[in-house]
């Protein structure tokens, strides 16, 4: 991503366009408001990797007083800042691999569904049962249900938009 002086000046308007567009996708009533529950998807889709705690912080900053809605005029500056500061950068592949290897104590090269489930649903920012089932359906091998994380990482960290 080359940034010369000229494009550096035009970055903010470009970011604004990007953010507004993503926001609009969820603005069902066309009134520049989105449901707070969609904010995660919007932020993720802009290329960020926040934790749930990070999301809560952002929401606290932009939510309109317990209405369950987030207005564009609050979201735009907050999100622009996030993007300019690269606040939630992507996770490098090798780090992700290390993470899986930590969970794979016996160094089998794969995780059994029960193992993964235990960690995902009992530690960190817990997965719901639905998320867990979805993850297993998505990632586990058809036949033996094991999650071969090494292969997955290289396949799945490729930007799905490309």
């Amino acid at each position, binding site marked *: 991503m080359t940034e010369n002086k000229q494009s550096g000046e035009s970055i903010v308007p470009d970011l604004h366009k990007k953010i507004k567009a993503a926001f609009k*996708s969820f603005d*069902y009533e066309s009134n520049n408001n989105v449901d707070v529950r969609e904010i995660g998807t919007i932020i993720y889709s802009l290329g960020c990797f926040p*934790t749930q705690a990070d999301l809560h912080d952002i929401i606290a900053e932009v939510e309109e007083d317990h209405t369950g809605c987030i207005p564009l005029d609050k979201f735009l500056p907050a999100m622009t800042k996030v993007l300019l500061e690269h606040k939630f950068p992507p*996770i490098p592949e090798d780090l992700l691999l290390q993470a899986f290897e*930590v969970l794979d104590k016996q160094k089998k090269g794969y995780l059994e569904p029960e193992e993964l489930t235990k*960690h*995902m649903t009992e530690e*960190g920012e817990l997965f719901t049962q639905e*998320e867990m089932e979805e993850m297993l359906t998505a990632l586990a091998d058809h036949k033996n249900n094991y999650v071969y994380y090494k292969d997955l990482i290289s396949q*799945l960290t490729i930007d799905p938009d490309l």
Partner: protein
Amino acid sequence: MNVSVVKEKGYLIKGLLVHSSSLAIRAALLIQRWYRQYVARLEMRRRCTWNIFQSIEYAGEQDQIKLYNFFGFLMDHFTPASSERNLISHIFRKNEICRDTEWERYFCYKSIEVSDSYIGPHLTFPMTFCGVSKLVEAFKHKQQLHARYVLQLLGETWRLLRILPNISHIAACHNKQITICGDLHGQLEDLLLIFYKNGLPSSEKPYVFNGDFVDRGKNSLEILLILFGFLLVYPNDVHLNRGNHEDHIVNLRYGFTKEVWGKYRVHGKTILKLLQKIFSWLPLATVIENKVLIMHGGISDTTDLNVIARVDRHKYVSALRPPKAPHHAANGSKTWTMTDRNGEAGGPVEGRRRVCSLTYRGSATAHRHELPRRSLNNAPLTSPLNWSVEEELKRRRRLAGFDQPYGELKKSDSDPESGEITDMDEWKQVIDLLWSDPMPQNGCIPNEVRGGGCYWGPDVTEEVLGRHNLQLLIRSHECKQDGYEFCHNRRVLTIFSASNYYEVGSNRGAYIRMGPDLVPHFIQYQASKTCRELTLRQSVGWTERSALRALREQLFVHKSDLISAFQEFDPNNKGMISLRHWASATERVLNLGLPWRVLRPQLISSTQDGMVDYHRTILIDGLFQISDNSILETMYKNHSNLETIFRIIDTDNSGLISFEEFRQTWKLLSSHLKTEISDKAIADLAESIDFNKDGSIDINEFMEAFRLVDISCSLPFHAQCKKSKGSLGIYTLKSIYRSWGEV
């Protein structure tokens, strides 16, 4: 034990628990964060794919209406040469005025013998529960019902439907649950799945089927026979609402007619004629407990159930054959000039556009008007990452084409002196029920995306429900990813029962169960083992590839228009234009309302500095070679229209049409499209298609030859074989070349 080793490996030893588990927690956090991001991005992709399919589907519907509006215009204003008049009158056969008794003779099954070699089910009448269950079993085992029984069953159905009211009323019984199903579109697997999960219809298990039983899927007839069978056995407990596809002219385009001809070569014509009558006699709506209103499409601000209850519903045979328009509308008949945009003032992009509509025949110009969005969870386009709000509004203004609210349009339409006012009003009431879609904004405007009915807003819902003292409106008509969706503050509920509608894995189907408390409960499903086994990523990927293929085909068929549009941005003929211009030109030509900049990477590569070599936009090619390329392109572009017209001409279903009929069809089509097609070009074309040189053209071969190859990506075998609905597929024409003595 060596403490440091243990520390490193993070084993669960008491004093070191904190360290190891905090590592595991950090690992878990990382994985969770990564996964959630991944899923969110997949979701955005899925929405985009969805919008592609939906926009192409609705564009196809609009296309057909334009064609018929054109023919209607011809009938009203010109006296075509006699041969052409014959052709058009095929299409606009005035409803024969025979009495029903004469029709009964025509539809009589008694003379049809069932030979001993027939291995399918035998039906006895009056129909019994055993009889229908037997029928269901037979269809499960892919047997075909004998034409005699088909006609007999349909005949009984017709007799019953004629005594049913326009609006069925159901009382909610204290111990019964009512099951409500949405669009099935010929997907027998889904109906069988519903019966498996929910049980067969009976007096203990009432069902409402909310229209669109036919078209697109390949078992439309089987579904109809099953539904009619159950209707005959339980007329008080099985309720069928008419959908916009229960329309013989729509069926010509969307596959049902083809299916019937394919299965019943001898009696297909009679069966189709009887079905035409049956469709016009299907009830229009169902009301449960005077509180829940169910119809296929929706409502408009003029919907009045009292009017609807009184109409002669069977007069409205097809949405595409309105009652004769009042005379003054003749002045406004510039309506059908969809292709007229070059003649408009105001520049290409900002230009005003007149749009076709079934109910509105006046002319109007575009205005600053917020347009409804198509819905995927009420969402419009997805991630149009570089669009501004202004661009969105401009796009909608272009699409709108009307400056008056829908209700006022209706008033200006009707002439108080004209005697036909009642007909047009009634017809509009019926069309609105079958074709309308909800929109998030208040108001009521013509549904120009589909070409019929309207878009209605939450205020209209409140008003109409309030006026009739109802609490919920259940409708179908639009595919929903989860099989169902609420809108308008949960006062409108869409239910859609055809799973995997656009592509394997595209959506779930659902049905409603409702008890005396009138609270809907949903059961979702997805037919086909294959898709259940697909991972999340694979199913999105598969659907996406399919959608992209359909899109590339659209690019192909509009090739010369696209190149012209691109060239407007390239005055020096460098062959390169900016991404922004590429996106804007593509949208102007294709008019699908899609986020082209997001899709661009899948369609064409760009250079470092954001330019595209636009000639390379078209990545697929047809292999048909004849002298005149423009006629070829017209052919590809109007593939569906052509097929529709051919099927109308081929009244005896021989699969063959004569050269003369072929020529007439082309002439008509070319005046509709306002393009020039010389007689010589048509003759060349006809000759090149007459593969066996016998002076007639085999329709099916002709259509097969139109399938296009997508050479830009290699697809798994089964995905290539799967024919996308309504679009062009692929074929190698080497054998055809050989027969021409070329190559």
